[in-house]
């Protein structure tokens, strides 16, 4: 692969799908997965740009994104479990106690 | 009852019993509420049916488990899947015809059961058993104890995942079954004991066969010890698991090694010696902590003691008859039938009607491999008993399971079931 344009395109598409997922789904777990998808798509872009400019910094960035994603998933899923214990649901619409 | 799918809707209307499509449920919802914690009804904890067809319930025991993760919150044993009606059947039979039935209660220790039943009837009618028969009964009862313990050890170890021990135990058990076959003609359902003595005298090959066992067994027991006693995994799985203290164990009516594991020195052989057990020198191993490991130790330490008793009995074995010569109790030798009309009459009378007993009630207990095996007989003077009851060790010991397993892990439950050594035939009768 020498031309990264299609890769960026793919990345953008995946990102869009992730965004739509995040705002249209109600199952918190799936929303979470869509966030992961968005992170992945940005990773893809980073790797592509790293390839473009011929240095490794982009790949390193992906590495850190992964670390952050791992931390986020750990805490997020723990939250999910805690919420599920009290509400027996992962529907984000039901998590509206903070509404005005 | 089928698996209760959680969360269970809590019915608030008149439908208090769960029926309709839950036709498989045979207890009411209210009854279920009393058995498990409220958390199970909201689906927070999981209800799990372990058994009646489950590899580690040692038969057809069913346990209704309430699990929080893998932690057992409640354990409700459900028995009766192997109910054979032996007690009731025995009420309709002359006394001697119930002996084969007793084989089938604790089917892993037939000789002990025979001994208890015969002893009870002998006590009821007041017949003396020849000393040779008593000694042979002791030898066979101790072999039976080892037989029972071997099956227990094998299955218990298999429950905890030690696979080879099971096969080694079964190998050793063969030697004892060979003795059974040699003396009685059957490997499991021996029915060898008769009221007033034994069916026949043991064959001449009996003694060398038992001597061989005496020689081989200590080594084999050592082998199990090498595999288990110091094994860290084994210790981790057993030490401190399923603890029950002495008082609580007594309250549950536990007996046998399961009770002695908690440190209570109660052994029918010592407490109320029968069948000339007081002629022999032996010790009763005791545990201290009342956990799975101590029960395991108690049983394993009983092997050498049993061997010791057998050796003493074999060395002191007197000559003489093996069954009482009271023709009213025991049928005469067959060759007498041809020559003696009296014998013929006794023979026919015993095999058709049986014998009459004095009115009254007796209780006679022996120490079987699993604990106190007691027989209660109530007689109204007819040839059939009015009431027969077997006080079986497995039943009493099983009662403690719910207590011991509270708060343990699922895997511990399996170990605890193994450690109390139940046989469902013994539980359900």
């Amino acid at each position, binding site marked *: 692969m*020498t031309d*990264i344009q299609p890769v960026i395109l793919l990345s953008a598409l995946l990102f869009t799908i992730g965004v739509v997922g995040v705002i249209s789904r109600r*199952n918190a777990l799936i929303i979470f*997965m*869509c966030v992961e998808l968005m992170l992945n798509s940005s*990773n893809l872009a980073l790797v592509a740009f790293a390839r473009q400019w011929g240095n490794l910094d982009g790949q390193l960035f992906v590495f850190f994104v992964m670390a952050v994603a791992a931390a986020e998933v750990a805490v997020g*899923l*723990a939250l999910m479990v805690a919420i599920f214990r009290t509400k027996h649901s992962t*529907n984000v*619409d039901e998590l509206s106690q903070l509404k005005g | 009852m089928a698996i209760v799918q959680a969360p269970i809707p809590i019915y608030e209307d008149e439908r208090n019993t769960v029926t309709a499509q839950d036709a498989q449920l045979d207890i009411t919802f209210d009854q279920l509420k009393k058995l498990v914690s409220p958390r199970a009804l909201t689906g927070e904890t999981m209800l799990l049916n372990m058994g009646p067809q489950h590899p580690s319930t040692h038969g057809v025991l069913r346990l209704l488990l309430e699990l929080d993760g893998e932690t057992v919150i409640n354990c409700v044993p459900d028995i009766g899947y192997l109910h054979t009606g032996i007690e009731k059947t025995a009420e309709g039979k002359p006394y001697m015809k119930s002996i084969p039935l007793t084989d089938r209660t604790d089917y892993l220790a037939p000789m002990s059961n025979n001994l208890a039943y015969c002893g009870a009837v002998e006590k009821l009618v007041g017949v003396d058993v020849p000393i040779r028969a008593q000694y042979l009964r002791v030898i066979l009862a101790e072999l039976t104890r080892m037989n029972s313990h071997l099956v227990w050890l094998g299955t218990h170890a298999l429950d905890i995942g030690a696979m080879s021990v099971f096969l080694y135990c079964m190998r050793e058990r063969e030697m004892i079954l060979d003795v059974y076959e040699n003396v009685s003609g059957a490997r499991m359902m021996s029915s060898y004991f008769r009221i007033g003595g034994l069916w026949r005298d043991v064959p001449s090959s009996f003694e060398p066969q038992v001597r061989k066992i005496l020689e081989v067994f200590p080594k084999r027991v050592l082998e199990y010890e090498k595999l288990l006693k110091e094994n860290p995994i084994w210790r981790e799985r057993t030490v401190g698991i399923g603890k029950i203290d002495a008082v609580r164990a007594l309250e549950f009516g536990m007996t046998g090694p399961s009770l002695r594991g908690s440190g209570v020195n109660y052994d029918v052989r010592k407490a109320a010696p029968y069948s000339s057990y007081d002629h022999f020198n032996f010790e009763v191993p005791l545990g201290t902590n009342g956990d799975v490991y101590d029960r395991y130790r108690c049983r394993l330490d009983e092997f050498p003691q049993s061997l010791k008793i057998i050796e003493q009995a074999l060395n002191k074995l007197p000559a003489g008859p093996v069954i009482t010569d009271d023709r009213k109790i025991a049928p005469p030798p067959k060759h007498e039938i041809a020559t003696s009309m009296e014998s013929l009459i006794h023979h026919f009378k015993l095999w058709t009607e049986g014998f009459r007993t004095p009115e009254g009630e007796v209780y006679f207990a022996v120490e079987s491999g699993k604990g106190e095996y007691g027989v209660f007989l109530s007689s109204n003077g007819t040839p059939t008993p009015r009431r027969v009851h077997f006080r079986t060790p497995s039943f009493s010991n099983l009662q403690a399971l719910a207590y011991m397993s509270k708060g343990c892990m699922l895997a511990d439950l399996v170990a605890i079931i193994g450690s109390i050594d139940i046989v469902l035939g013994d539980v359900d009768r």
Partner: protein
Amino acid sequence: MSAEFLVFLVVALISVASALGLLLSKNAIYAAMFLILNMVSLAVIYLLLNAPFIAAVQVAVYAGAIMVLFVFVIMLLGAEKLNAPETRPGLKWQQPLALALGVALAFQALYVVFARGITAPANVIEAGPLAIGRLLFTTYLFPFEVASILLLAAMVGAVVLTKKDN
């Protein structure tokens, strides 16, 4: 059309399809499976982009750890099918609007990608574990350490959150 591009095309189609599957699946387990597929396909693209290390880490971390956690939690909660019907009638227009905005975003992205020409890429450089590691422990040492602290904090947080108070 080179063989590599062919491979890319196939994999990209798979990844878009799996992302759509994630978006549309009713069942959380299926969603997770689609996401795993998506991640594995991205790993293949990373390979095409001369990033074998990242590809391997992608599979190991995302597919091997993060998604296992997801699947584990879904199974633990039994939350895979808890997709209640739309209970908020006032939000009926929300999903179409989200889709519309998403399409708009996608078009904007397309525009940006194609409006600006991207210059020919530089030479391929070695992206093995050695090179990455060297960079990680020199230039990026501080972020690396911070990441480790972040993970530690996340770990503690997860433990605290899921601990049952007795």
